[in-house]
């Protein structure tokens, strides 16, 4: 009678672990690199390196953003953690525009979640990137003052820019 339980439990556990592995492993360049991906960019580094770099930077931003979110949700937010995270986001924000050279478009066969619309509507993309930079700056300013309410408002405003950009320019997986 315990047989189906145990087998099912094991199968599910293994499935979960495998999936987590696949989800993490996929980022470490396990995919076959196309010719385009080994091209060297004018600013140095290959296309593949640039895609990896922005991927990591976005994850850094996501990590920091989650830290702020977690702290805001907790009854007693850790202001030091918020300050550090907001500073990191603000540090990355002005560079977002530079992470998307035209050579890294999926239209050229590059493996990326960035959408080709980035290069089809460059003004729109640049406008959101600029708004994001402003919002991230304001979030950082609010964080350094330690005013939780102001941090909450700036957090929402910044989050709106992440979402706006992802909705239009990132493949929804």
């Amino acid at each position: 009678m315990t047989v189906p339980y145990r087998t099912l439990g094991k199968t599910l556990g293994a499935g979960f672990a495998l999936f987590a592995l696949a989800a993490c492993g996929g980022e470490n360049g396990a995919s076959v690199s196309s010719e385009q991906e080994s091209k060297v960019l004018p600013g140095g580094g290959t296309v593949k390196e640039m895609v990896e770099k922005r991927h990591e930077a976005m994850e850094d931003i996501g990590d920091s953003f989650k830290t702020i979110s977690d702290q805001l949700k907790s009854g007693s937010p850790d202001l030091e953690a918020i300050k550090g995270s907001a500073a990191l986001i603000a540090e990355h924000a002005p560079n977002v525009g530079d992470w998307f050279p035209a050579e890294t478009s999926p239209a050229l066969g590059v493996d990326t979640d960035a959408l080709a619309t980035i290069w089809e509507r460059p003004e729109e993309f640049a406008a959101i990137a600029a708004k994001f930079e402003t919002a991230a700056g304001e979030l950082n300013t609010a964080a350094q003052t330690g005013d939780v309410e102001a941090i909450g408002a700036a957090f929402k405003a910044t989050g709106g820019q992440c979402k706006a950009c992802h909705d239009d320019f990132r493949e929804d997986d």
Partner: protein
Amino acid sequence: MTETAAGAPGDGSAAGALVWDWSVRVFHWTTVALIPMLWWSAENGAMDWHRRFGLTLMGLLIFRLYWGVAGINTARFASFVKGPKAITAYLARMKRPYTPAAGHNPLGALSVIALLAALTAQITAGLFAVDVDGIESGPLASLVSFKQGRAAAEFHEFFFNVLLALIVLHIAAVAYYFIALKTNLVRTMITGRRKGAVTANPGPFPLTRFLIGAVLAVAAVTLVQL
């Protein structure tokens, strides 16, 4: 509420004997209603609602798992989870004229276990899930890193397809019983009774045990939100 099996075992009354107690039926049909609502809220980014529906389902599921151990007759896992031998023997009996089991049959038991396990996995992943913007997250996401939360979210999204496949299989099986075996399982899950079913008299509904389960479920739902 007290509910007893109508009459003695092997009840021949018009209403039939009690096969599913009301708490099992409420769990079943609330889950049926919640799954499309969960899907819809997620698709439309109504994450506040998605969390509410998900936590409701979590409470119900915790109750059902508890009821599988501490509940009454047909709800108990021990009463219906059988080994491969019983399943093979049952397969040989799956033809007309078909006499339905008073409870889960050995094959249907697999479907029940798979569905309950899949719901458990899906809800667990949802508790830890983090969206790509780092804004929306499950109630326990603060316990994991951003990356782990993203992996949980991706599992949650992918695993919904597995859950759907199991649901389709479940519905197909119910349709098979209806068409090929002339057995209406849906009506029994609504009324709880089946004519001619032979069940052990469960006696009065065990209200205290039910309340313990309800308190457990509510406590768990409250705890994950602290």
